[in-house]
């Protein structure tokens, strides 16, 4: 109950009922402890408490493997092989043990090959296929998997631990190394259940978040806690820990790109997407779809309805405010496809009230409130009896939907003749909703003309966004600024780029930056896995099928954004299955209200309390005087600027993260776990020690 008491401070009365309801869930995730140098004993209670912190991820069943070197734990959300898929799972001679979170969609095809090679299976799960594939191919098996996963495999004979994560980082996996012990888990809170792990905010991570909207992999907002980067695996063997990249975001030089006609490109895209959807419908439970009314989710839903399941259940978000709501197009798609649709109304009050809960799952400060409605939507999905949904995420990155890509293209065009008024006019077509005030035209044009002499800089495309976000750092406390010192995030990004980055076209470079930084750690995390798994819902993302990603990386930039028409290829590909109103509509970025959510009658008090001089000084992250002035301004000004809105939610969410994870972390209050399966191979001597 202590957990509840601590967290209740942030809550208003009406949300408590909803919160208590979630506590009946036990929660799919993986955890583990591995002694790098040799046997040292692992406590069953320690692994149980780590699993207990992840009970939202796997409500169906838990399991544990223990020996003198390693402890593995698993919390299961049953989607495939409901009766026999309990983990940890072993190979034929029980020398390999796996705990695994996620799905490999091409497992039936992989299994056929393994059966032919003589492997025997005791479950029908994809997990066991992955284990045998590892037994057969070692780490090279990762290149054969089409899916979203994080896994730990223990080779009990070699005494080797293998941790791996999917290509783009759909499934999370974090770790820390403390006293020659690797402690890992699907979420950071499970690692924090070890009382020897220090819980501190990392100053450099704060600098990164308030520049790039997220940390740069492998850093997290917590000092010495790292994520296993997407497309990487880690091995611990004979006292040595090694990290290796097995995949990178595809980048092709001009000579390697496709010379297919656009019509042929569209035909192949349709085929690839249809197959990406087909294999993502593999499950022993019904699969639903998120349907916003935008091009991407409308396209995936239409592919499902027209090819696989005309009865598919769909779910969408509605907002109170016209600027955010996509109801008109959502309703159009519901009628067009004749689907059974459930909408969740994200009122400003709900968005504000559930921000603290959402942050508990995201485990990082946010500069937007967009994750909260998705957090609320997954609750509706789960309560409707669904555990799995297809979403349209990833299409903007792969097919070129974001304004930042168009903006970079126009700025490059402008950079050739910076004084050209005609070229400058194009900026107005990029952001019609902010250029709709004719008074601002010249000012906005000057705004986008910044940095035009930097077109050779690898980060040119993102420079304005990052510089703009960096303005929030003016609110950092002196103490935080001193701890950050001379750190330069831009240099770190430049140095992390692959060798062929400079030889690819401008647009592919912008896509790479967007996918490597923003997509994995924000879109797929705070607006993806974390807010869906908060309510035990798994998201599946056809647009991030590796075949689709690789094919589109070979398509020349001129076809991806035709002129400044974003996602040209995807629109053309979907024309045969979507109404014109959807393929012809300009992109409406997904956003949620900020000021209206955080400063309304129901939330003002907790916002004021978290941003009070006393609270801000205690956390030591921000300048209390400036925060007070910001709060005063936010209450007085009717239309708060974009940057002030971001500052408001950025500071508030940092304060709440500090409070939930550093100051008031419920160390001894994980949900009780009674594992259905315990494989205990510890020696008597070390069992007593641990």
């Amino acid at each position, binding site marked *: 109950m202590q957990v509840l008491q601590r967290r209740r401070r942030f809550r208003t009365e009406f949300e408590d009922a909803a919160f208590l309801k979630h506590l009946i869930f036990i929660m799919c995730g993986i955890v583990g402890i591995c002694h790098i140098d040799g046997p040292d004993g692992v406590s069953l209670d320690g692994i149980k408490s780590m699993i207990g912190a992840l009970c939202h991820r796997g409500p169906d069943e838990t399991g544990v493997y223990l020996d003198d070197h390693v402890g593995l734990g698993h919390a299961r959300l049953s989607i495939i092989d409901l009766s026999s898929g309990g983990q940890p799972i072993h190979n034929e001679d029980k020398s390999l043990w796996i705990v695994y979170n996620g799905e490999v969609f091409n497992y039936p095809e992989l299994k056929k090959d393994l059966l032919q090679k003589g492997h025997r299976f005791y479950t029908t799960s994809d997990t066991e296929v992955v284990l045998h594939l590892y037994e057969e191919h070692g780490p090279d098996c990762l290149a054969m998997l089409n899916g979203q996963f994080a896994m730990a495999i223990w080779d009990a004979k070699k005494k080797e631990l293998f941790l791996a994560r999917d290509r783009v980082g759909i499934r999370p996996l974090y770790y820390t190394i403390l006293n020659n012990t690797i402690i890992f888990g699907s979420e950071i809170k499970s690692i924090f259940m070890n009382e020897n792990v220090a819980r501190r905010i990392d100053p450099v991570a704060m600098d990164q978040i308030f520049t790039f909207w997220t940390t740069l992999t492998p850093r997290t907002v917590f000092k010495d806690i790292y994520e296993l980067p997407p497309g990487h695996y880690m091995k611990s063997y004979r006292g040595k820990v090694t990290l290796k990249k097995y995949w990178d975001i595809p980048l092709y030089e001009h000579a390697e790109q496709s010379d297919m006609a656009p019509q042929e490109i569209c035909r192949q895209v349709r085929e690839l997407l249809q197959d990406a959807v087909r294999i993502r419908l593999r499950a022993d439970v019904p699969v639903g779809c998120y349907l916003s009314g935008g091009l991407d989710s409308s396209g995936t839903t239409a592919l499902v309805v027209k090819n696989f399941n005309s009865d598919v259940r769909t779910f969408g978000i509605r907002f109170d405010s016209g600027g955010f709501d996509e109801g008109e197009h959502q309703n159009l798609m519901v009628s067009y496809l004749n689907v059974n649709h459930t909408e969740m109304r994200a009122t400003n009050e709900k968005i504000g009230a559930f921000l603290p809960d959402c942050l508990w799952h995201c485990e990082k400060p946010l500069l937007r409130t967009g994750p909260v409605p998705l957090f609320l939507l997954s609750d509706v999905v789960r309560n409707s009896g669904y555990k799995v949904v297809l979403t349209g995420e990833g299409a903007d990155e792969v097919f070129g939907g974001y304004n930042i890509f168009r903006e970079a293209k126009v700025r490059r065009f402008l950079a050739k003749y910076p004084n050209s008024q005609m070229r400058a006019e194009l900026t107005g077509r990029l952001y019609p909703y*902010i250029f709709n*005030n*004719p*008074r*601002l035209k*010249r*000012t*906005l044009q*000057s*705004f986008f003309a*910044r940095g035009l002499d930097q077109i050779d800089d690898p980060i040119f495309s993102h420079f304005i966004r990052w*510089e*703009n976000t*960096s*303005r929030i750092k*003016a*609110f950092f406390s002196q103490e935080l600024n001193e701890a950050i010192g001379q750190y330069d995030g831009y240099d770190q990004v430049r140095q992390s780029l692959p060798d062929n980055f400079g030889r690819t076209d401008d647009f592919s470079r912008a896509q790479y930056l967007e996918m490597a930084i923003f997509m994995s750690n924000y879109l797929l995390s705070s607006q993806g896995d974390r807010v869906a798994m908060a309510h035990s819902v798994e998201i599946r993302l056809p647009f991030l099928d590796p075949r689709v990603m690789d094919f589109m990386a070979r398509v020349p930039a001129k076809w991806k954004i035709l002129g400044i028409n974003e996602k040209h290829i995807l629109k053309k590909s979907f024309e045969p299955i979507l109404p014109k109103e959807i393929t012809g509509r300009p992109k409406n970025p997904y956003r949620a209200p900020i000021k209206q959510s955080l400063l309304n009658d129901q939330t003002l008090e907790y916002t004021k309390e978290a941003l009070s001089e006393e609270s801000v000084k205690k956390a030591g992250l921000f*300048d209390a*005087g*400036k925060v007070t*002035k*910001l709060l005063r*301004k936010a209450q007085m*000004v009717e*239309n*708060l*600027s*974009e*940057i*002030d809105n971001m500052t408001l939610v950025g500071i508030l969410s940092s304060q709440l993260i500090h409070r939930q994870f550093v100051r008031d972390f419920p160390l001894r209050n994980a949900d009780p776990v009674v594992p259905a399966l315990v494989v205990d191979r510890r020696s008597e001597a070390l069992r007593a020690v641990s």
Partner: protein
Amino acid sequence: MDNSSKVREFVVENFLFGDGEKLRDDTSFMEEGIIDSTGILELVFFLEETFGFSVEDDELVPENMDSLQNIARFVGRKMNAGSTAEA
């Protein structure tokens, strides 16, 4: 308080949240990221309210609004034009 000081105080309080140490008279609001598009509208609203003149659309250009120095010149011209018109 003179006109320039009023403008400085407004910019420091509203866009720099009290931290005006590094704000010089010729610091570019755009280049330094002090004011964005919405901020320009706040600034115009303040100028019109405080000094009682209207800012025309074609006056809303960086040459008039992008630094304290530019604003001071702009306000001076507007005030003079206003008094000339009245005379």
